[in-house]
């Protein structure tokens, strides 16, 4: 006990080495503080990057798997509707479920909604146009999916 008291007195009474000690403590504290800040910043930046890149890869992969085909476009004349009906048969030939979100006829949106098509499945979308299709007229039809793929084609109405 006496020994400890003596060394404490010697330490307090000593004129040298206090600056060295403080310097050491300061350097260690700065390294810890700066290192921690850098670590937190790096983790945040990397997390944000990884999240964005992961979303991009997963979205692109889903889009890439989509394939659909317009098999047939059938122009019909339902009684009383004056040549305004068109039926489109669409087949999912991709590797992923597809959700049809819109159909455009001559660049005008005529149908919106969500129609799910499983892989290999074929389904139809029946449209009623606001204007009659002309006999023998070539019609430009686009079908868009919810993920942003578009399949387009020209189809001729019967004479």
């Amino acid at each position, binding site marked *: 006990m006496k020994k400890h008291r003596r060394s404490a007195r010697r330490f307090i009474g000593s004129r040298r080495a206090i600056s*060295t000690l403080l310097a*050491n403590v300061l*350097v*260690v504290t*700065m*390294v*810890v503080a700066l*290192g921690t800040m*850098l*670590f937190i910043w*790096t*983790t945040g930046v*990397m997390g944000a*990057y*990884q999240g964005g*890149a*992961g979303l991009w*890869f997963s979205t*692109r*992969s889903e889009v*890439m*798997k989509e*394939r*659909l*085909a317009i*098999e*047939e476009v*059938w*122009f*019909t*004349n*339902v009684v009383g509707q004056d*040549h305004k009906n068109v*039926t489109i*048969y669409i*087949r999912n*030939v991709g*590797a992923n479920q597809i959700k049809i979100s819109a159909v455009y006829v001559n660049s005008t949106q005529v149908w919106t909604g969500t129609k799910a098509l499983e892989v*290999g499945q*074929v389904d139809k979308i029946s449209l009623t146009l606001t204007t009659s299709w002309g006999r023998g007229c070539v019609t430009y039809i686009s079908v868009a999916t919810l993920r942003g793929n578009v399949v387009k084609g020209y189809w001729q109405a*019967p*004479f």
Partner: protein
Amino acid sequence: MKRFARRRKGIGTVLGAGYFIIIVLAIFNLIMWEVTQYDAYQQLVNQMNQVDQERISENLEFIDPGITDFGTLGPNKCFNLTIQSRGGITVNTARLYFYNYSDTSSNALKIIEKAAAGISVNYFTNGFINPGESNHKIRVVTTLDMSKATASLPYIIYLVTERGRTFSTVYPRTILPRPGNMGFIDIGPLRFVFDYYSLNYTTTTQQTPIPGWVIKPYSGQAIMFFVKVINVASDSDIKLKRICNFDCFENIYTGASGKTHPIFIVDKASTWPGGSTMFPYDEVNKPYILPKNPDPNNPQGGISTIIKFGAATPGTATTISLDENYVYLIFMGFFYVYRGQDYGITIPFVAIQTQS
């Protein structure tokens, strides 16, 4: 250890190094993650490209008259759709649509599904078509009486494949009246057609075939010709030999020297005269076989085949070119094997021009 613990210096360096190592490891981890993700994405892209390539490889043609062998099956009608496959892959038919083009009522469209349990009518069988099949018959059983279809009340037949391709034909096909004997010439069992699209060409700059009557603009590039030929014989296929050639005779009056450019047959997979797009003709392993005429009453005379000429010497892929601004008379030498015997004929063919 004690010495290390008592050392006054170095603790900041150690901590700094520790942080540095952690950050480097984190960046490495991020790079590895990104490489893995990119690799997985690239694999998917390649897989879907393969799917697209297979889809593009499908190529079907309806053979005249399109529908044959009409009959009945109980109360229903049955007939065969006759098809040939010119693609390089097996095709699986998914569905058929028969669309009465002169009818806009709800009865105009008949959908024919693949035969399956529970489907007793409006179905088809034999929907798998192998590459190279020249007279494939898809059997259709339906309530539709296609024998009553006429040129003024035609149907459009759509054949949809499982890969999403659609091939169509009109039935009955409208056959234009033959203009005397000007539409084609028959020499031996071969028929050469003279319609506008029966002679096409490609060059290093014109890589998709277009009609070759006037080659313009042309400045001496390597050239390849496509000629439509039909085997009208109904008793045997015809195999073409490697010395078949397309001879271009320069007309001296246009300033040419009157020389001859013999252009020899190349492989059927050739597209245009480039290093990796034109291939030597292999008479033994991959010859042109002109299929025999399956129907002697066929007004078109049989199944057409496109023969390609582009090589400077027989059995090679050495390119050849013509001279610009000249007139050429074309004769073709066709050497072939018919019913096991060798033949050779000279065809007085067309006259073409090259213009710069």
